[in-house]
């Protein structure tokens, strides 16, 4: 069922220039994700996972091939067009949280809503923070929050726009095992309730195993995992 496909990569290549000539980081990647699915991309450091994620999310452009996200060909869009598509359909969670230091937890969550021009940004953000268990910490700045708390704010920010696809880059990479476990629970729980498609990049096999499907990235090539 093609209509079901929310994300597709076709013959995706990414090369960068190095002192020794062009260096292929992503090679010949073909990859499909269905709506509501959860997919993990695993691999060692330097395998090209983050680059693939950037290409899939339209943060970077491929050297060859194309990416279809929510039915739109990202390679046919300019940077602003891709940004608009992300605003409507995509959410992100990063390893290093990427919260705006100058904004409180609530304001960080409000940011994507405000960018989309939503009038109810404040109330929606408050609800989202309550959802991740931070209803009492809305006025805190990132530096006043622990790592786990910061990641929960990031998750609230990612889900608050109800995106079609959520990209998560090593979401537990900066956290201890226990905290990481709780963050993963939250991520999968929200994924289930919000019917979001989850694309998770990690080197943590245990975390990857919680996804419905797993792909393995090795030296730029992607293959279905066990």
């Amino acid at each position, binding site marked *: 069922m093609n209509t079901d496909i929310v994300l597709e990569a076709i013959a995706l290549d990414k090369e960068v220039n190095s002192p020794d000539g062009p260096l292929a980081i992503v090679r010949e990647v073909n990859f499909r994700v269905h709506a509501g699915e959860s997919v993990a991309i695993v691999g060692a450091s330097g395998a090209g996972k983050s680059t693939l994620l950037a290409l899939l999310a339209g943060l970077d452009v491929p050297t060859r091939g194309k990416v279809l996200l929510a039915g739109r060909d990202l390679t046919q869009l300019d940077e602003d067009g891709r*940004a608009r598509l992300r*605003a409507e359909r995509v959410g992100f969670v*990063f390893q290093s949280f990427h919260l705006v230091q100058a904004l409180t937890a609530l304001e960080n969550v409000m940011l994507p809503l405000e960018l989309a021009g939503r009038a109810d940004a404040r109330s929606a953000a408050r609800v989202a923070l309550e959802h991740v268990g931070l209803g009492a910490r809305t006025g805190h700045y990132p530096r006043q929050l622990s790592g786990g708390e910061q990641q929960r704010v990031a998750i609230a920010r990612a889900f608050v726009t109800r995106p079609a696809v959520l990209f998560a880059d090593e979401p537990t990479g900066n956290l201890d095992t226990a905290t990481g476990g709780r963050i993963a629970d939250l991520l999968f729980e929200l994924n289930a309730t919000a019917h979001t498609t989850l694309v998770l990049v990690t080197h943590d096999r245990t975390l990857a195993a919680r996804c419905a499907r797993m792909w393995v990235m090795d030296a730029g090539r992607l293959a279905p995992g066990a």
Partner: protein
Amino acid sequence: MRALTLAVRLLAREWRSGELGVLLLALVVAVAALTGVGFLVDRIERSVAMRANEVLAADLRLQSQSLPAADYEREARVRGLATARVTTVLSVVYQGERSQLANVRAVTPDYPLRGRVSVGREAFGAATGTAGAPAPGEAWPDSKLLAALGLHVGDELSLGAARLKVTRVLLNRPDEGGAFGDLAPSMLIAAADLPATRLLQPGSRAAYAVLFAGQPQSVAAFRTWLEARKQTGERLRDVSEASPQIQTAIDRAGRFLGLASLVAVLLCAVAVAMAARRYVQRHLDSVALMKTIGATSGFTLAVSLAQLFVIAIAAVLLGSLAGFAAQEWLLRALRGLLDADLPPAGFAPLLLGMVTALALLAGFALPPLMQLARVPAIRVLRRDVGAPAPILWLAFGPAVAAIVLLVFWVLRDPKLAGGFAVGLALFVGLLALAGYVMVRIAGSLRGGVGVSWRYGIANLARRRAASIVQIVAFGLGIMVLLLLAVVRNDLLADWRRSLPSDLPNFFFINIPKEERTAFMQYLQERGARSSRALPMIRARLTEVNGRSVKDLRFTDPRGEGFAQRDQNITWQDELGSDNSLVAGRWWTPADHGRALVSISTEYRDSLGLKLGDRMVFDVAGETLEAEVASIRKIKWDSFQPNFFLVFAPGLLDDVAGTWMTSAYFAGGDGRIVTELVRRFPSVSVFDLGELLNQVRSVIDQAVFAVQSVFAFTLFAGLVVLLAAVQSTRDERRYESAMLRTLGASRKVVTLGIVAEFVVLGALAGLLAASGASLAGWALAEQVLNVTYVADARVWLIGTLGGGALVAISGWLATRGVLRQPPATTLRAP
């Protein structure tokens, strides 16, 4: 609109988090410096101008040989100007059997509109006070008239059909001037007494002057009105014509003040550029994040612009207030040193400050912000990705445009502004190049120093681009401050040199040829220090290069005057020390008796002459043709006898003429001069004491202006540099936290940071001193026409001062971070 709302909301949030403090502080300080200097310059300039206008006894003066229309005064009063009238009649004054021809000046009660009349009780005596106009029935004869008639205060004299009582001795009128137009003594009476004297009859010769004074704008507007309506024969005079010495002082002070304003502008630019750079560094992540979650480039740019605009408005308002308060405080603190109240501050500097601040923000902050909008979203995944390389014209174009525009605005002289802009560009380029070389050299030195220094110097070399930017910024800041100091010293030294206390205070003209030796001897015997004696011959220009002067067309009224009136000419062996040749050569013994003439630069400019031109003069009925052999620049403020036209010796020796000289009498010794007038009755005496006092007072005012504006700009500059150093602290705080985590003591880290700042500041200071010396030379010699004195201390002060200044402010900026536990710093990205 959405961008604006979000921008304001984000701004408010950033403000609460304390993030904007440094940017706002830098901008506020910069605007405060700019407007503060602006307010000060404006007020002092107006005060100096007002003081200078005293030589006219007005701001504007209309002179005529026929009665000027009463419309002029009516219109002036409608425009809110004050007016007064002086009617001068040449008449004989009687005291018993004695009589003396005198210029009688009948003045209206408001005379003088600027300055005061200085009066005394004895001829050539000390002033006992100042006054306005004499009351009806009173006469104030001057010392010469008093001496000639043997009058005393309290006596009565006859003037035409009236009898008047001598109540005071006229020692000086503010509008007496240095010109030797009237050889006759003079006397002030009230205009109301003029009809009773019956001196003014149809056909009688009188000269009229109408005086106007008021707010500068009103005077300027009235001048335009008057110029369009004045009749032939009516002449408008301003201070430049009335007193070249005072005009020179005002021009120089004005140029220095303009320079100070420019220095403030450049410091402001440095602060804005540094603050904007920091703003961009601090916002790379959040812009990348905003783009990741869906903001377009245009939107992020709009948000940044809106934020900048709001910050600019806030900075302009706060900065203007602070600038106004600072200069007001300075002037209050210095009140005792001022001999007159300064006029209140106008609104012009406020506007100037706002426009300048906005122009600088647009020029220096816009390009980095546009860069910021181009940060790719991928930075959220790869921290090494910054903004793409700037487009060259976009990065420097607006900055260059803003500076050039402001330089033109302040200097209003295309040639000067062009030179300034080119010089500045060269200096910045040179700073960057030298910074690069020095950073490399410093990097190679680190093997030989201790751990703190090694760490500091290594940082300089590692952050090469940032170090070079900082060297350029600090170097430029220190350079303009040093430059101001260098120029100030030259200017003050020149003023001190030009007005020594034994400057001639009396001029003697009409000394008959046969009495010359006796007269000079008389002066010498009475302890007067006399200067050179020069012959003085009347001549009239008749032809220039074969064309009659009647056929010449003049654009310059002064040229017309030179061509149409009799002039005093002289001959002279040696070139006076107050004269310098700008073209041609001075006489050699071989030129004795040759028909050669040396002209002054004023004469050249007014008549459009050049070397080799041939001029024909009528000298006592004889025709004399001479060739222009040299052109001299005269320092009028030397107060020595000087002539526009100087002929070669041996040519005019036999022509009938008189001699002139100047002399210094300590304390303006009245009795000696009174005696001298009796002994040599044909000699005319001019007391320059009051004019000298006027010039001294204007120069004192100008010195005060230069000193206080310099001090204020220096202070403002230091604060701006402090703010600029503050903006570089982020780059250092993360590393210092890291080092402390690795086990370095706070002392080692502090020393490392101080070492880095010391090297940075000293390098910048060294380069700045070289730039300031070069620019100081150019400014002193080319713009201010003062002698440049090379001073090695500039390098010492530049290097040591730069190192200390940057180190102290750097230490102040990073001290807070060092007090925090490293974890706090490390946790915040």
